[in-house]
């Protein structure tokens, strides 16, 4: 495997979608290649940062309004 090909397999690797044989070859390459190891680490840190986009608090008025709607549903719907 060449670095150029390895970088294109990173998602399949992280998704567990490589065949056992490809996975082995991938891991062998990574173990011996500083560049691809750094690239994989960059990808992992990218994912970690991307996940932080979810940290956005619900605005208080929206929470109040939805809670009110939930309360109404609870008291009338059934």
């Amino acid at each position, binding site marked *: 495997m060449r670095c150029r090909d390895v970088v294109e397999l990173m998602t399949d690797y992280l998704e567990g979608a490589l065949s056992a044989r490809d996975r082995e070859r991938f891991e062998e390459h990574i173990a011996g290649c500083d560049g691809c190891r750094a690239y994989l680490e960059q990808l992992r840190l990218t994912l970690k940062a991307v996940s932080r986009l979810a940290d956005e608090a619900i605005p208080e008025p929206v929470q109040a309004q939805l809670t009110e709607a939930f309360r109404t*549903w609870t008291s009338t719907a059934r």
Partner: protein
Amino acid sequence: MGEGSELDALRRGDEAAFVDLIQRLHGPMLRLAMAYVADHHVAEDVVQEAWLTAIRSLDRFEGRSSFKTWISGIVINHARSRRRKESRFLTFTSLLRGDEADRRGPTVDPSRFGRDGAWRELPTTWQNIPEDRLIGAETLDRIRSAIQDLPPKHREVIVLRDVAQLDAAAVGDLLGISAENQRVRLHRARAAVRKSLEEYLA
């Protein structure tokens, strides 16, 4: 709280459980809505409408998917119909960009590799970047715009998988795409965001 008990709590009218849920899922659902409608206020609206729909449909939710998957589907429906309404405002180029979605080809600039296919210059390690820079406000802004620049079909996949943290099976069901297709889109999306971060962090 497990999925089943979560749903039971909601059906019992457990308000604390409901508040916990909307607090926990607000961020992910807002990002999801923004994968379809770029305007923050419109996205807020979409999420709120989706919750109101969900509340009205609680009795019909059968729990065959996770609650998060279910509400994600409702957000996607609302967001898509909102986008359709506003699509007459879209520019011609932004409509064309959808066609790029499944294009193949390398995700890393070929000039970074030599003729033997090995790195010419190694990617740098990010291990030494302090946490508050890596996930700092400016970095997150950078990521948001990188995601916004993606073709819409890549954008929805990366947001569902990496922001809302749904699993591959749930995303395949929601979008009606094959596992392979999803991986291709996810790969291209992640590679594009990584590249943008690499330029920013350099």
